[in-house]
């Protein structure tokens, strides 16, 4: 995948866009989820709270109505003139006038009416459509110790009993509401008895069973002591308290909730039992000290959110798929010319400059690229054509130059020793041309049997003009030397010839000498050339003819000076061009005349060849890898004499 992403621009664009979109969707979805969850929770809690309050209100209505019934009769019982025989009639009256009441007892303290004995508790109860009246108390039915009597009597307040199953053995649940009543004898207020009514709890079951919240949410009432009075699971009713149930479910949290309910707290609680997370909303039923709980699975609360979430995720997946498809189509289409450009570029690289470029109809960057490509293609074509021509021309010039150099080099004598039969002298020369054709020259020849003529020169400038000038100089020398006997005449003749028609003002530094090999008389003339060096046979090296004259080719009428000296046996002459003394190394340091003198000082009694090769080596060492910029020309003659 990574390989493919890296390889294809389209897939990379799709990957980045999709990654960003997925990120964006995830953020949006998370925010939607968080906010919706909060809203749903709030709405469900409000709904649960409303249901709870409403159910409690309905329940309280019934309980309070029942409580009111006894309020009046309590007052009646507390009157002063109570006829014990009329009491049963009251119980009957209460039942008759209140169809929801199952039974009514007015129970008195032991021996309250002496004539009635220890137990006096007229009681009327409903049996189908008829009313049955009887006196409840007996040795077997010590009502004084029964909750319905004893508790209100002891606490001195009305009391709703814990619900119980109807004595008939049916599943009908009943609760008894008991109100103690008192008589006042003198200053003493004395407990007289308890008036009770039995109330079937069918109505409560009906009210609570009708509560539905979400899918399976339900309501349940627990009594003052936690007993389930209503619950969808009938097995729990009257068998379990919320606390015993908590124990069976091993849920301490449920026990805590039960205690909160018992304490009359209104609250929402979250709890897990029976492998389900539940929300419990509980509110007390104050008059009877019961508590109503509305219970619903947490998952159902979030069910709509899950549904919307699923739909959203599906939509996002579909959307992303479509987006992917569209982006792939668009990007592929948009960048398709690039592939063509790439192919065109390859073809152009192969030399096919006329290859066709993809057609671009849009006026955008791709069009710019197309135009640039076209210009590049055209320029390349022109350039390559020019290049071909230039290269051809250059090759031609180079070839001609090479030939020119070969011709130039062929002009100078290169056979050593040049005069093997003449023992009086030995001679060696070297011309190492620079890359280009240069203008250095040397020459030597016997004018006659006695006189050796030699010369060295350096034409100003480089290249073909210099080489031509050098060739002219050398040719003139060869033609002038045999006719003239002295170096001065030769030089003057050369100068005159060179100066004529020298419109380009080229010149040549020139040194010429003629040695009488028998006498050692050495005549010479210097036309602006580097001073020659003499290595004396007895030791010592020195430059002579330091005063430079003007070079040849500038002033046709100039008369050059001739000098003369006599060479001793084994005196050695060393001539050179400025290519030697001005050879530069990388640090732009010149080889210099000093170094040349020093080098030659170490070459006492060396033969010319040895001296020249040694100087060449020394110069090379100085120059090192720096490119040779000028011709290196040296000429050395040793005089042995007769």
């Amino acid at each position, binding site marked *: 995948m990574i390989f493919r992403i890296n390889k294809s621009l389209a897939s990379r664009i799709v990957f980045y866009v999709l990654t960003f979109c997925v990120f964006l969707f995830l953020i949006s979805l998370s925010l939607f989820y968080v906010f919706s969850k909060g809203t749903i929770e709030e709405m469900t809690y409000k709904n649960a709270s409303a249901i709870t309050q409403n159910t409690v209100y309905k329940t309280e209505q019934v309980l309070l109505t029942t409580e009111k019934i006894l309020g009046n009769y309590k007052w009646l019982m507390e009157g002063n003139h109570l006829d014990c025989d009329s009491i049963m009639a009251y119980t009957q009256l209460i039942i008759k006038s209140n169809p929801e009441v199952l039974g009514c007892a007015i129970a008195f303290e032991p021996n309250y009416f002496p004539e009635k004995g220890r137990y006096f508790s007229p009681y009327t109860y409903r049996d189908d459509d008829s009313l049955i009246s009887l006196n409840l108390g007996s040795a*077997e039915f*010590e009502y*004084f*110790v*029964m*909750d319905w009597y*004893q*508790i209100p009597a*002891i*606490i001195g307040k009305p009391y709703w*009993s*814990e619900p119980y*199953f109807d004595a008939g*053995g049916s599943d009908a649940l009943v609760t008894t509401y008991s109100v103690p009543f008192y008589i006042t004898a003198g200053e003493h207020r004395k407990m007289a008895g308890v008036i009770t009514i039995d109330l079937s709890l069918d109505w409560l079951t009906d009210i609570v069973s009708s509560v539905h919240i979400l899918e399976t949410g339900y309501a349940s009432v627990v009594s*003052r*002591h*936690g007993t389930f009075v209503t619950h969808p699971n009938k097995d729990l009713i*009257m*068998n*379990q*308290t*919320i*606390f*015993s*149930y908590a*124990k*069976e479910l091993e849920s301490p949290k449920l*026990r805590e909730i*039960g*205690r909160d309910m*018992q304490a009359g707290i209104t609250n929402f609680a979250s709890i897990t039992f029976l492998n389900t997370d539940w929300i419990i909303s509980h509110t007390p039923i104050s008059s009877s000290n019961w508590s109503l709980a509305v219970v619903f699975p947490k998952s159902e609360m979030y069910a709509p959110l899950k549904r919307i979430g699923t739909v959203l995720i599906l939509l996002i997946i579909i959307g992303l798929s479509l987006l992917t498809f569209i982006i792939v189509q668009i990007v592929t289409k948009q960048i398709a010319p690039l592939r063509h450009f790439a192919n065109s570029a390859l073809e152009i690289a192969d030399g096919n400059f006329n290859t066709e470029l993809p057609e671009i109809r849009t006026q955008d960057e791709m069009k710019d690229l197309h135009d640039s490509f076209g210009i590049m293609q055209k320029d390349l074509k022109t350039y390559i054509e020019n290049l071909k021509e230039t290269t051809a021309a250059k090759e031609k010039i180079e070839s001609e130059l090479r030939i020119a150099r070969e011709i130039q080099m062929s002009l100078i004598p290169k056979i050593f020793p040049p005069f093997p039969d003449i023992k009086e002298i030995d001679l060696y020369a070297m011309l190492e041309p620079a890359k280009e054709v240069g203008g250095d020259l040397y020459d030597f020849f016997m004018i006659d049997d006695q006189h050796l003529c030699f010369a060295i020169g350096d034409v100003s400038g480089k290249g073909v003009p210099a080489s031509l000038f050098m060739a002219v100089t050398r040719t003139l020398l060869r033609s002038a030397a045999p006719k003239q006997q002295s170096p001065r005449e030769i030089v003057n003749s050369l100068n005159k010839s060179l100066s004529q028609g020298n419109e380009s003002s080229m010149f040549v530094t020139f040194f010429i000498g003629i040695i009488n090999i028998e006498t050692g008389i050495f005549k010479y003339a210097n036309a602006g050339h580097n001073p020659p060096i003499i290595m004396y046979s007895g030791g010592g090296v020195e430059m002579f003819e330091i005063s430079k004259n003007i070079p040849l080719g500038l002033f046709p009428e100039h008369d050059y000076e001739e000098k003369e000296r006599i060479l001793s046996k084994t005196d050695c002459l060393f001539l050179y061009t400025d290519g030697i003394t001005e050879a530069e190394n990388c640090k732009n340091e010149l080889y210099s005349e000093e170094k040349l003198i020093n080098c030659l000082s170490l070459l006492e009694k060396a033969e010319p060849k040895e001296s020249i090769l040694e100087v060449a080596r020394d110069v090379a060492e100085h120059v090192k890898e720096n490119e040779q910029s000028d011709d290196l020309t040296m000429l050395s003659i040793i005089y042995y004499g007769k």
Partner: protein
Amino acid sequence: MLRKTILISITLLVSMSSFGQLPKLTFTPHWLPQAQFAGYYVAQQKGFYEEEGIEVEIVHPSASVMATDRLIKEESDIISLFLITALSEKIKGVNLVNIAQLSQNSALLFIAKKSSNISALEDLNGKRIGIWEGGFDEVPKALIRSNNYQVTWIPILTSVSLFMIDGIDAMTVMWYNEYDQIINSGINADELSTFFYSDYGFNIPEDGIYCLNKTYLQRKDDLQKFVKGTLQGWEYAKTHKEETLEIVLNLMKKEHIPTNLAHQSWMLDRILELLEPGSKNTEKGRLIESDYQKTLSILSGEGSSNILPLFNDFYKPVIERKILNQPQEKSK
């Protein structure tokens, strides 16, 4: 569940038809069905009595007819009673005898809410204490009397409601019954102060098996079989609690007695603890004379003017010690 019940019923039918002529005994426990009597129910439903060679019918007392009444009227051959109740009846002239003493320890205690500032026994002095109106009041009264406390006894029937709504300061309860009911009514154990009578020198054994002396003399063999079967039932209950609780809960459901597994499970565990002799130098099923004398002293302290029975006239074990020691082997 249903299948198991059917299987048991079939087993019982088969047993009964095979031993159609088995001598029959009617047994009445001293209270309504609950785990307190699990051993008897298990022995009956698992066929341990039939295995011994007797047929046992269990008839429970009602609100109006107590176990003792049935014994006197000879409607029941055997009943279970608290030791002190039985001894009291004996003193009153009912000629009953103890043929096995199952419970070895007292399960009675006073409880009070810590919020009533009762944390030591002496704090009960001057307080209103709930006590059952229908009996079992001798030991608590003797305990209070022995400490010379003045208390107001408030008679109550069976409910714990009066205690729950603070109508009384303290209450006599059974460790295996009312105590757990109170816990199951929402009061936490750490909110209660408990005073076990056994910690104050009143570790009086409770449940025992009784019959009339006449029956003892005439049907000693059958009685022995009943006790053996019962002990086997208790051993079975001890090792098969889940099954035992199922038997008990089914029975209670049939009798329309509200209850739940959590409470009956607590009760069974506590009852099984009470059957163990613990630190007492005796064995399961036997009554030791010192317990008898202590019980007698409590009753005589209440001012009974009747002639006090002798230990041997009261306690007539139907099973020898070594047999008592081997109920499990027998059951194999």
